[in-house]
Structure formats: C-alpha cells, structure tokens
C-alpha cells in the first residue's frame, strides 16, 4: 500500500497561507506582555488597614508560604494582632485559598505576574507593604458569596417575648448538641478572642473540642482559668465576640453560648468534679482570707485551693456569687446554675462563712492578722444617686436594691407604672424584672439607644417584652402625692451635641421641654460605687484607694503587700469576667509572694 499520492504531497503546502500571522500570546513583538484577566491570580495584595492579622491565610496555605510578621507602623490592639502576612512567592501555588478564607476580604491577588530577580530572598515580601501600587491592580478578590467563612450564626432558641414576661423562666434555651457542633464549626481558631478576653480564656481550643464532639475536653479547658464558666456562659459581657474575625462581615461566633453549652453538659457539682478531675496539691500550710464571695473572690479561692492553700471566704450575704447572685435576674442566670458551680468550688475545699460582714461581724484587723494573705473582692454595692428633687420619696428605689430583694425571694411592690432611669445592664434588668411583676415599664436614658452601655441583646430582649425606651431624656424632678409616694417623673428632652474633643456626643437638655410621666415606682440605675467602711484605722491609710478603687499593681497587690484586691473594686471594666481575671492574676501574685519568700513548703 502506498501512502504517497499527489493530494498528500500538496495539501501540507496550504500551511503557507498562515505565513506572517501575528502570534497571539504577545501584545506587541518583541516583548510587551498581555494584560491579565480581571480574575487573574497573580501576586498578592493586602489592604493593610483592613487586615486584622488573624492569620487565617497562613493557616489555610497548604504550602506554608505565608508567615505572620510584625509591620512597622501597625500596633496590635484588641481585635488586631498587629501581624501581617508575608508571602514566600517561591512557595506559593497561586491557589487563592488565602483570599477565599480571609474574613475581612483584605487579601486579594493582583494582575501582576512578572518579577525577575537573582536574589532568592527578594521573593519574600509583604503584600500591601512592599507593593502598595497593587491596590489598583487587584484581580482575584474575595466576595461574601465566594467566601469560605461561615457568616451565619446558628440562631439561639429563646422563649417568645410575651411568653417570657409571665414568669422568671430562663429566656435563652441553649443550644442542643447538633446546634452547638454547627456553631463551633464556624470558628477559624484565629485567637483574637483570647487576646480580647480579660481572662484570656482558651477560646479556640474549647470551641475546637466542642466542634469535634468532645464536650468533656471543652469543660476541662474552660476550667483551666475560669471557675465560674457557666455563669460566663450565660451572662458574660463577651468582649471576645466584639473582636471575632468573622464579625467583620458576618455574625460573630456565639462564644458565650458555646461555653454555656459545654458547661451545661456537666449537670451537677459531682459531674463537674469527675470531668475536670483537678489535681489538688498537698496542703502547703498557708492560709488565705478572702472578703466577698463574688467572682473574683471565688476565683482566688478555687485556684489557690488547688495549689494547696487553705482558703476561707467571708460573705455578707446568705449565698455566694456576689452580684451574679443578687444583681442578675434569674431569667438570665438561674440560681441552680450558680449553686452547682459554688458547690463544686466548696467540694475542692474552699470554706465560705456566710452572713458574715467584715467590719460588722468580724473586724478587718482580725482577718488581716489571722491569714498569710488577704484578698478583697467586695465589689460595688452602693448605688449612685441622681441628686434630683424628690429622690427620697417613697417608691423611688435603687435598681440594685430592687434586684437584690427580688433575687432574695422577697416581694417588692412597684405598682403598674415603673420608670427606670439609666441605660446599663442593671437598668435593663430592673426593667425586665418589673415587666415580669406585671408593670408597664419605661426606661429614661439621657443619650441615644445606640449609646446604651447595656448589651444590645438585652436591649432587644427588653423591647420584645414590651419595655418602652425614651432616649435623650434627663430626669429633673420626682413628683410625689400627698402621702409622700412618688407619682410622676419630670424630665427634659436632650439634644446630642458633638463633643469638641472627639469623644462621644453629649446630651444637652433643651430648656422648656419639660415632660411629666406618671409613675408608681422609679428605679434608679445610674451606677454603683464601693463601700470601704470596713477598712478602719491604720488600714484606711495603708491601703491606698484612688477614685473609688483600690490601687493595685499587675499582680493585684495593693499598697499593703499582704493585701490583694480585685473585681469591681479594683478594675474599671466592672464585669464578671474582669473580676475572674483579677482573681486569676491575684492567685499568681499570692502564690509568688508566699511560696516564693515565706515558710518552707
């Protein structure tokens, strides 16, 4: 068979018609490269201002081409590690996963693809810092639709608004196992939350344990530096969630609810002990006296007891927990939940003397002399007063005292029209409790609703329950009836004036805008202060107090080396988790002071 024929010989000559055709790959001969496509995956660009240094890009990079390194001019702060990605373009495989996992969408890939150098080190550069012009050439960018972050929070089941006001039943129902696993799986483990938590709890670690279905591990990790986790799981102010990387484009991980889920799996004190199974050291002979069984005092007692110290708490009230027991309403934090945690702490060997008010039932001096170290965690029991006319009328009650009575199981008659003054969590609590007592409730707050220091969830909850909020209202006078009982509140409308110094806008009353609303009770909730009357004689001089708070060093030590202080009476943030953090620092301080210098162990 012959393959050679005329057609087969001549046909290849048709190739000549392509002679002189322009090549496609070059724009111009000899060498002007083509412009890359709009989605091209070229060198990285990072918006340095937008980046929070979470390191998610470095975690996903399967070539380990990304390091997180400090940058000049970028200071780390809460919610920003201060680190920025540096990319080894010699290792990068241009998959762009770093872009798709970036929670802030600061990282993108550009159209730039040409870089020639004989210096191998020069392939290592920081996008955005070393190529600021990349901003104009961004190509492969992250969008919410293509992002690999999970922006939607698993909704928390709650009682319906009008159902809630019928009783003091807990409003938040808690995640079930499936919901908790799903919510925990959203976490990218960046650890920005750990930095923001006053107590630096190991948040990514316990969330990871929950996500893997290992709740007991989660509980153990949580108890590492927080002895009241179920309380935090229910009512923490959660600074962690404010800085959550996912919150930049979505809803933050429900860190608080996950902690709640994990700790609720341990149903009673015995189970907690079984799970945590703490190592309790041999008694070392040191005795520590603690004033106040609030979060800070309990923390000190728990961790010192584990370290072999003999701890005794003096508590003025019949129950432990401090403000978390007497200040927080039971629909947020049920009593049995607190009881089980206190019981566990007592089982570890902490002694609590209830109904023992230092300064009244026992002098401070006695405690000071009896113990090797003293910790003061007395909190802020005394409410601030408004200083307006008629404040001492009957029916004008301090919200803290009101909540104390209610939480103590007493009845308080507030009538059917309650006015609450203030915008913090105490104000909202007092309002919601009053709703549960059957009253119509109005909150007067001098700034705008968005300025309220209370949790937005609390504000929302109050509104759902029918609490009426009048913002920009400054009370000027309480009117009384002939029996000396409050019957109305007169307030002035305020307008918000921008602060010249750049602070938040100030409310300025509008003259003549006086409005009077009826009231059967007025609850004042504009803040509390300390009561240090128990410090008598030499102690009042020796232990320094400034602006209503103890002066402490980084180990919570006061100006008397033997005395430590924490909680609201020593920090400005005045929440439970800060109190626990103070307690944890004091534990280290006390241990260092005693074991480091004193008797033989």
């Amino acid at each position: 068979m012959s393959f050679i024929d005329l057609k087969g010989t001549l046909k290849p000559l048709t190739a000549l018609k392509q002679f002189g055709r322009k090549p496609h790959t070059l724009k111009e001969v000899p060498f002007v490269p083509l412009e890359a496509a709009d989605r091209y995956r070229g060198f990285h660009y990072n918006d340095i201002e937008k980046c929070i240094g979470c390191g998610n890009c470095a975690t996903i990079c399967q070539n380990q081409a990304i390091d997180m390194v400090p940058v000049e001019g970028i200071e780390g702060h809460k919610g920003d590690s201060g680190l920025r990605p540096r990319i080894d373009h010699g290792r990068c495989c241009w998959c762009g996963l770093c872009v798709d996992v970036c929670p802030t969408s600061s990282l993108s890939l550009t159209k730039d693809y040409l870089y020639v150098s004989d210096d191998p080190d020069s392939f290592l550069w920081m996008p955005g810092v070393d190529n600021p012009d990349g901003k104009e050439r961004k190509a492969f960018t992250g969008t919410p639709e293509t992002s690999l972050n999970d922006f939607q929070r698993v909704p928390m089941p709650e009682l319906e608004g009008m159902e809630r006001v019928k009783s003091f039943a807990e409003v938040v129902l808690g995640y079930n196992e499936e919901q908790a696993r799903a919510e925990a799986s959203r976490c990218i483990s960046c650890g920005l939350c750990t930095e923001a938590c006053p107590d630096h709890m190991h948040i990514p670690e316990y969330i990871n344990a929950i996500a893997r279905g290992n709740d007991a591990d989660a509980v153990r990790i949580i108890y590492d530096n927080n002895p009241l986790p179920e309380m935090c799981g229910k009512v923490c102010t959660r600074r962690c969630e404010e800085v959550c990387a996912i919150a930049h484009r979505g809803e933050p991980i429900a860190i608080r609810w996950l902690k709640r889920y994990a700790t609720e799996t341990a149903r009673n004190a015995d189970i907690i002990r079984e799970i945590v199974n703490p190592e309790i050291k041999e008694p070392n002979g040191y005795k520590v006296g603690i004033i106040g069984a609030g979060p800070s005092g309990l923390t000190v007692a728990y961790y010192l007891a584990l370290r072999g110290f003999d701890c005794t708490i003096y508590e003025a009230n019949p129950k432990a927990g401090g403000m978390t027991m007497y200040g927080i309403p039971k629909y947020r934090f049920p009593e049995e939940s607190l009881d089980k945690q206190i019981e566990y702490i007592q089982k570890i060997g902490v002694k609590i003397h209830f109904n023992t008010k230092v300064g009244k039932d026992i002098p401070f001096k006695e405690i000071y002399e009896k113990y090797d170290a003293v910790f003061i965690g007395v909190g802020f029991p005394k409410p601030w007063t408004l200083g307006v006319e008629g404040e001492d009328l009957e029916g004008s009650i301090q919200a803290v005292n009101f909540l104390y009575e209610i939480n103590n199981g007493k009845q308080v008659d507030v009538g059917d029209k309650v006015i609450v003054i203030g915008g913090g969590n105490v104000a909202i609590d007092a309002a919601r409790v009053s709703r549960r007592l059957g009253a119509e409730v109005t909150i007067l707050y001098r700034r705008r609703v968005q300025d309220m220091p209370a949790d937005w969830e609390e504000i929302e909850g109050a509104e759902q329950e029918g609490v009426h909020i009048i913002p920009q209202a400054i009370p000027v006078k309480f009117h009384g009836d002939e029996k000396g009982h409050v019957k109305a509140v007169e307030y002035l409308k305020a307008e918000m004036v921008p602060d010249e110094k750049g602070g938040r806008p100030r409310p300025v009353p509008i003259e003549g805008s006086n409005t009077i609303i009826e009231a059967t009770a007025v609850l004042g909730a504009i803040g509390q202060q300390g009561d240090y009357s128990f410090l008598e004689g030499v102690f009042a001089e020796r232990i320094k107090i400034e602006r209503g708070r103890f002066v402490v060093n980084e180990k919570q030590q006061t100006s008397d080396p033997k005395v430590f202080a924490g909680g609201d009476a020593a920090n400005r943030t005045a929440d439970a988790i800060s109190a626990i953090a103070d307690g944890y620092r004091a534990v280290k301080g006390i241990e260092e002071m005693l074991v480091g210098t004193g008797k033989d162990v």
Partner: protein
Amino acid sequence: MREKATTLYLGPQHPGITGNMMIRLKVKGDTIVQATTEVGYLHRAFEKLAERRNWLQSFTLMCRFCVPEPDPVEESYARAVETLEGREVPERAKYIRVLVLELARIASYMLWYGGQAGSLGLYTIGQWSVGDRNYILDLFEELTGGRVYHMYIWPGGVRRDLPMGFEEKVLKTMDYLEKRLDDYEDLMFDNAIFRKRTIGVGIIDPEKAIEWGVVGPPLRGCGIQHDVRIDEPYEVYDQLDFEVPTEEGCDIWARANVRRREIRQSIRIIRQVIDKMPKGEFYNKIPNPHKWRLPKGDAYVRTEAVRGEVGMYIASDGSEHPRRVHFRGAAYVHAVTLLEDLLVGENVADVSAIMNSLGTCPPEIER
C-alpha cells in the same frame, strides 16, 4: 550473521513531549526487541500529601496530578467528596463543570496535536495547535484566574460564576477553532508522511486492550465503544447529545482519528451547554474548611478524562483530613505496561509517536 542487541536509553528528558520518564530499549539494528519503562522522576507524593492536608486544601493538589488535563482530576476529587458527604451540587454548577471539562479536553488535545505531529517531525502543526490552545487558556484565565492550573471545580460546585459575556466569548472561540481544525487536518491527516508513519504502527490487540484495562482513545481506536460519559453519565452528560467516535485500525492512525473527531464532539457539547445553562447558584457552600469533617466511609467515582477513564477513591475516618486519596489514572496502564508490550518489534524512530498516541503522562503515572 548473528546480530548483537544494543541497549538504548530513551529519556528521561521528555521523550516526545510527554514528561520525564525513561525507556530502556534493547535494539537490534532499528528494531526493538525489548522495552523496559523506568519511572520515578516525577514522584511528588500528592496522594500522601493529601492525608496531611484538610479536605479543602487537598483540592489544590489535584490539578497537579497531570499537567495537560488538570480539570478531570479536580472534577473527580470534587465529585468523590460530594458523594461521600451527600452534598448537592447546583444545576448551574454542573453545566459550568461540563463546560470546563470539555474546554480542558480540547486544550489537552491541542497539546496532543503538537506532541503527535512533533514526534514525527511535523513541527508546524504543533506550533499552530499550541498557539490556538492559548485562546482556550485565555478563556480559562478569565473564568478561573489561572491559565493551566485552574483550581476551579471544588467540592460543592465551582469557585466563581461565569464572568459577564463569557458565553459569547466561548462560542466565538469555538467557531474559530472549528475552522482551524480543518487546517490541522489538511496539514496532518492529509499528509502523506503522517499516514506513512502511523498506519499500521503501534497496533494494540483489542482483546488484550480489554484484558489489560486500556481506556480512552487507545481503546476506542480498537473499535470498542467505551466512555464513562455515556456508560455512567455524571454531571449533566445525560442531558447532552453527542457521539463517541470509534475507529477500527488499532494503530496510531486510528487513535489520532478518534481524537480528531472527539474535538468536534466536544465543541458540539460546549455549544449545547451554553445553550442549556440554567441561571441560579453556582456553589453549595461547604462549612468552614478548618473544621470540615466528612463522614466515615469511602467513595469511588469514575470520570472520562482526556486520556481515558480515571477513578478517584477517597476514604474518610471522620476527621478533617482524608484518610486516603487514591487516583486511578489511565497513563499507568498505557505508558508502563502496554507500552513495554507494544514497542517490541517496532522501529526506534516510532517510539515517541507511539508514546504520544497512548496518551503517556508521567506525572499522572507517579502522582
């Protein structure tokens, strides 16, 4: 006179344009009496690496199994993961996947044109086809952000939606390519040299082909119709109208003709896909990749890649990482076992033409 056999080493530097592998030939004169393949120059342990990476990170390794056809491997991995997890893929994503897979098929065949012709000394055709392949790579660049490694088909769908006006560009490119295919055929299939060098060369015994597990164009060049897209349709192939060409010759010529006709079928598929593509979602979002765990179990999926049927096996122990990823490529059978058998009795000068006709891909053999 007794002839003495000489040992000849072919490779490892790219015999043909297939990739790095070596063939040790024993030749008597120009005739091969024994061939032994030696591979191991491109081993990158992707299957093992996948066990250290999480389910999503592993996806970026898949395209690197085989340089000229990254997409079928991506597709196999994505579909295996979806099968194991029971994850639904949006209809639009399925169409986009088929579009990408068929574009990849054409791009890969364009490269094959260059290899097949180039191995016989016909270099012009290679320059044309590789040049025209760039039009498809341009499309890929616009769609996926990458020209060669697309990393585009991932578990749950595809990574990005089609850009504005992409469909028109695809159709325009298809029209252009269709015209160019005529030129190629003039230059290659009507070429007396090509016919002389390929007809009756590298003949595979059809029975042996089935027994040994030969797939793809080499099998269809033996007159046996076998194509996963028809036999076990995945994505939306069952809604598309196309033919699977077969040839009877069992030689290089037959295999080349199968491929020549397949390109035209791929163009036909792409036109239908563009026509039928529904609107809607393109991605059924996976959970947070760092904590994405697949249920315990395993899955095996088959895909019709360019060089034949490939299989992806994945096993999960319920953790964030694959327990095992195994890829069954076509090239191992073709270029290791079959090649050794096929080369015996052939001329030394035909070795690289035979390798190319079998779809040899050393990176895919070793992974």
